[in-house]
């Protein structure tokens, strides 16, 4: 598929797949997925009882499995899915099996450039992660919460390193979980660990930790902070490696701590989804300044726009702007960018996409079953039955819209200013 600059950015519209109806002799097909460059649409298709394959545009893979599921495009445009046959699972990439088969496999993830495909796997009752078809050398009684570094070279998961019988609460209380990186578990034992995260150089890893039945903290490279809290959420490394920050709950209020010290004094009814700007000079979060009133905060300064529910904070590449979804508890959705609500409310909205350069920001919205792109808050083009996330070209002057219209899949490239 090549880099984004090599994609077809010629202004215009083309019908990539004329009819999305099942192909001849096919029973039915599942929901479609589209490639990042918009040139390919794929869907799992049923050929006969216990016989599945994958349709890509108007062709079908020449392999079949008893079940095919979890179809996903990698960032480099390869079509992946999980195939099951005779009680075994296989990672399928462009109709080829990658690596060995597994007793079970699920949840593919990709490096930023798509060169690494990771998958959770189980063999002989033991769990781990496989990267490009190669499983961890060490497998564990259980593994979950796995992550792949953005360069695709490292993976981490929470693993069970101490066996526990039914309802052995004493064993659990001493700690049965460890943090594992690339299949190697740190020696530290915790009651629970969640959401490991790598630093920007992929040399360090942090995670939420439960160190006693009542105490929560953050552990960094298996070293828990000395301060414990009533609860913590997902940690995040400062992009320049200066510290680790995480939302923490103290005396019923949420704030942010860095390396165990207060960064934002606890004053919120909630605080989640921390994100740093690339330079680390801005720290963003979703916060609730008051009970039932949510918004965005940057460097501990909340926006003035409040809402009963806020999700999906997205930063621009420079990290000095943010867009977010606000709703009246999943109804009457709004897009809010830089503390300004775009006009209109919607039945559903998707996270905003910022252009790489410049000020443009787009989002897909839905009303009465029809979807539309909003560009900087204004309708951009016509309505469709389905639209995937808009993709900007490298300089942000053009946008690609991948959409379904009248049972056809269309790919449109337009000037952002058109």
């Amino acid at each position, binding site marked *: 598929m090549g880099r984004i600059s090599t994609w077809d950015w010629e202004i215009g519209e083309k019908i990539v797949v004329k009819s999305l109806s099942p192909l001849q002799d096919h*029973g*039915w097909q*599942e*929901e479609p997925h589209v490639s990042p460059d918009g040139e390919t649409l794929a869907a799992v298709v*049923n050929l006969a*009882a*216990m016989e599945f394959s994958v349709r890509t545009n108007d062709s079908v893979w020449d392999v079949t499995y008893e*079940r095919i*599921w*979890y179809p996903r495009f990698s960032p480099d445009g390869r079509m992946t899915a999980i195939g*099951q046959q005779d009680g075994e699972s296989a990672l399928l990439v462009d109709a080829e099996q990658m690596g060995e088969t597994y007793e*079970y496999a*699920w*949840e593919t993830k990709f490096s930023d450039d798509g060169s690494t495909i990771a998958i*959770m796997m*189980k063999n002989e009752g033991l*769990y781990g992660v496989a990267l490009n078809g190669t499983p961890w050398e060490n497998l564990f009684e*259980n593994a*979950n919460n796995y992550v792949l570094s953005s360069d695709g070279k490292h993976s981490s998961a929470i693993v069970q390193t101490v066996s526990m019988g*039914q*309802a*052995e*609460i*004493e064993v*659990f209380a001493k700690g049965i*979980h460890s943090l594992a990186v690339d299949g190697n578990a740190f020696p530290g034992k915790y*009651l*629970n660990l969640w959401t490991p995260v790598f630093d920007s150089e992929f040399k360090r890893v942090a995670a939420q930790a*439960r160190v006693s*039945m*009542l105490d*929560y903290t953050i552990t960094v490279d298996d070293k828990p902070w000395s301060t414990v809290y*009533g*609860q913590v959420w997902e940690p995040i490394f400062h992009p320049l490696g200066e510290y680790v920050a995480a939302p923490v*709950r103290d*005396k*019923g209020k949420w704030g942010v701590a860095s390396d165990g010290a207060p960064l934002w004094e606890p004053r*919120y*009814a*909630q605080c*989640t989804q921390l994100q740093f700007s690339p330079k680390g000079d801005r720290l963003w979060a979703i916060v*609730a300044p008051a*009970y*039932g009133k*949510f918004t965005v905060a940057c460097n501990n300064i909340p926006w003035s726009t409040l809402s*009963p*529910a806020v*999700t999906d904070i997205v930063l621009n590449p420079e990290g000095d702007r943010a867009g977010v979804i606000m*709703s009246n*508890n*999943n*109804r009457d959705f709004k897009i809010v960018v830089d503390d300004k609500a775009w006009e209109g409310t919607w*039945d*559903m909205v*998707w996270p905003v996409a910022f252009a790489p350069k410049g000020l443009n920001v787009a989002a897909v919205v*839905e009303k009465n079953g029809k979807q539309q792109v909003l560009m900087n808050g204004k309708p951009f083009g016509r309505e469709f039955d*389905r639209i995937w996330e808009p993709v900007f070209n490298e300089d942000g002057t053009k946008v690609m819209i991948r959409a379904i219209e009248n049972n056809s899949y269309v790919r449109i490239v337009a000037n952002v200013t058109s």
Partner: protein
Amino acid sequence: MSHISDRIISDPGLELGVANLTTERIEEVVNQALKGETGAKLKAYQETCMRCGLCAQGCHFYVSHDGDPSYSPVSKATESIYELMEKKGRVSPKRIYEMAQIAYTECNLCKRCAHYCPVGIDTGYSMLVMRRICHLLGVVPQYILDTGNSHATTMNQMWVKDDEWIDTLQWQEDEARDEFSNIRIPLDKEGADIYYSVIAPEPKFRTQLIYQAAAIFHEAGVDWTMPSTPGWDNSDMSMYIGDFENMGRLKRSHYESAQKLRVKRIVMGECGHAYRSVYDMGNRWLGYRDMPIPVIHSVEYFWELLTEGKIKIPKKFEHPVTIHDPCNIIRGMGLMDKLRDVTHMICENVVEMTPNREHNYCCSAGGGVINCGPPFRGTRVKGNKAKADQLRNTGVSHVVCPCHNCHGGLEDIIDHYELGMHPKFLGDIIYEIMEKTDAL
């Protein structure tokens, strides 16, 4: 009149917990909790309660023990949380054991007694504060604590691993394809109208319920999905332990798994306490005034499907049935009319229990009591002779019971009192009698 000290039951969780306690530790924790986590409501309850005893008749434990005052709500509160308040936490570890046993195993937090109190004291709330203190003291019955540990580790209550969940859904989909050739259990379908959530006993040992739900949704043409990732279990024993921190984590996982899929709303299976957790407690701990995404109970959803004609019933269920009103969706949420509408739409012969609707007796399994496990089975079964009498007096063969814990509790009561009845989920009956236009 008996006393809690006369009926102490051995439990490793409680024993281990009190073994680690000192009177100083108890005093410190109790006062911190009372000062930091409670307010005027609890104090008003304690000071307003005139010990009139009118709440007693509201409690199935009291009624079932021939009016033993020790089982009355006022006594249970007086012997636990009110005593802690009066003594400012200066009690012995042994006394904490007794209080924990009362709070976790002799009160279902069903709130029926609040209907009988002339000043509206909600003893269910007070007993939950007691449980919260027990959690902070580390004195929690073994089995429900293990359930909480499972919640924290897997985000579900039965240690179901990530792959086991998906594998079970796929297995049920395969099974269902023997009946409906193109049926699906759609995983991670973005933008679906509904996200169907269940509690962990369904993939663990009641898999037919997932099959039945898929069949019903298939027949009704519902645009639905289930997540392949944690968050699918809506249940919440952490709430009943008093571990509100973990309750919040669970609810966040549940809501966010649905928000990520851009669904319109969550439909939850036939469970009572999970509903309480999503609309009343878990959401509020997270800072939401309401639910951040609409969640409706299966009773309500079945009502929609039936009244809109999406499910057709050619011939109603013929066996006479009675209706068990689960506390959390009836007293807690007011679904009594819709439950009756649905039951009458699918059943030929409905005989009401007496009393019924918001006055119905709890199953005695709710409030996490059944999750306290085998040591306390006798407590809850003997503590609900009232329910057995209610059931027996209907003279019917089947009990409609749209709640998992109630189901388990009623099964034990039916077995113990040899009632020869059969609890049924609404989904059991609907699946059995609905028109299956697409069946092979």
